[in-house]
């Protein structure tokens, strides 16, 4: 899978997000300080925000092109998104959350079934629980599973572990690696935690005030 952002311009409150980038690694990290435009970058990739210029392409399919007024809506992009606050639907049980985006028509193999995903994410015993009664780590895994079950071709993760302590983060990292290895879904992982970058990412792009100021291996960035 390859995601290309070409000549993107998205005005934000204090600056504009302006970027050209190709994402073609299994897990690409986006690293930068708070307010650098990281969440806005994920929003425009998922289609939740619309740039004023540029184009977005996944493999050979253009999903946004300002010049051609082409804008594939989020529901048709097949780009999963786990936001910082997870946004689990509080009025639905775990099972209903997981099945919300379940699209059997898109499933090409048995990997993307409720039973298998719940087993891999170790949430099978939680299926009949209310999401509001889950612990932080459980909510995290339910959010990952919900996104996986929508059979995305790309998964965006916006600091999904920022509210967890370091012990819980270490326990969750293997689950993220399973998304890559078991389900073969490429990830774009936003964080400002250098430890998460090193543990997870194949490549890191550094973002500052809306501009990509560098890219390299996690070790290079941390150094």
């Amino acid at each position: 899978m390859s995601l290309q952002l070409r000549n993107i311009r998205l005005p934000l409150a204090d600056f504009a997000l302006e970027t050209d980038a190709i994402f073609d690694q299994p897990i690409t990290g986006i690293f930068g300080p708070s307010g650098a435009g990281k969440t806005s970058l994920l929003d425009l990739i998922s289609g939740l925000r619309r740039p004023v210029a540029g184009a977005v392409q996944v493999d050979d399919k253009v999903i946004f092109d300002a010049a051609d007024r082409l804008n594939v809506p989020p529901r048709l992009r097949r780009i999963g998104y786990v936001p910082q606050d997870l946004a689990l639907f509080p009025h639905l049980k775990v099972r209903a959350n997981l099945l919300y985006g379940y699209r059997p028509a898109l499933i090409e193999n048995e990997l993307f079934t409720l039973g298998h995903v719940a087993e891999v994410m170790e949430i099978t015993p939680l299926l009949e629980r209310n999401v509001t009664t889950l612990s932080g780590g459980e909510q995290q895994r339910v959010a990952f599973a919900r996104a996986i079950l929508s059979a995305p071709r790309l998964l965006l993760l916006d600091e999904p572990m920022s509210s967890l302590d370091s012990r819980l983060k270490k326990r969750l990292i293997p689950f993220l690696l399973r998304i890559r290895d078991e389900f073969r879904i490429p990830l774009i992982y936003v964080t400002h935690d250098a430890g998460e970058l090193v543990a997870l990412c194949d490549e890191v792009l550094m973002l500052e005030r809306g501009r990509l100021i560098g890219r390299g291996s996690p070790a290079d960035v941390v150094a």
Partner: protein
Amino acid sequence: MTAEAWQIVFFTIEVSALSTLLILPLGVAVAWLIARREWAGKAVVETVVMLPLFVPPVATGLLLLMLFSRRGPLGSVLQRGFGWDIVFTWRAVVLACAVMSFPLLVRTAQAAFEGVSSRFEDIARTLGASEWRVFATISLPLATRGIVAGAVLAFARAMGEFGATAIVAGMIPRKTMTISLSIYQNIQLGHDAAALPLLFVSIGIVFITVLCGQIISTRKRPR
């Protein structure tokens, strides 16, 4: 209380409930459009919706009388199309109650929709949900308590409606006479003692209704 007084009480409850049910779908739709969409003329529509709160009720009643009389632009259409007479019938009572309580329903439902995190709706879209499905499965369920509270307030407002009803429906015994109209008429005729039971019943019904609305709207809601 006399049999006639009880008839007035039940008639008032019936028309208040009917008017609330009739405005519910439109009120919820308008509230959602105001809370969640930007569109040309939105400020004008918001103002028009709020007008009955601030225009003298008798003026609203006069406007309804002009619109819905047999020769009025809307009344003539309803007469020709359905054979319905509006003014000085029970339908006029329902109409007056609906118009006067509409702003309370819309304001409360609008606040309820605004209280739902838009992130839930965004994530539902990335999970493949259409706009209608987002509304029906996310926005509406999460705003239900506020909408119910708005409906309860609208019902209470309809129970006490007087000015517009008096103009457009008159005070016709056993036909358009509500609690408010009956209390007023009894006082005008010097029958204060006959007005007292209606006064206490009216206070009792509205007290219980508003209390229910307060309890519903202040209950802790998952976000």
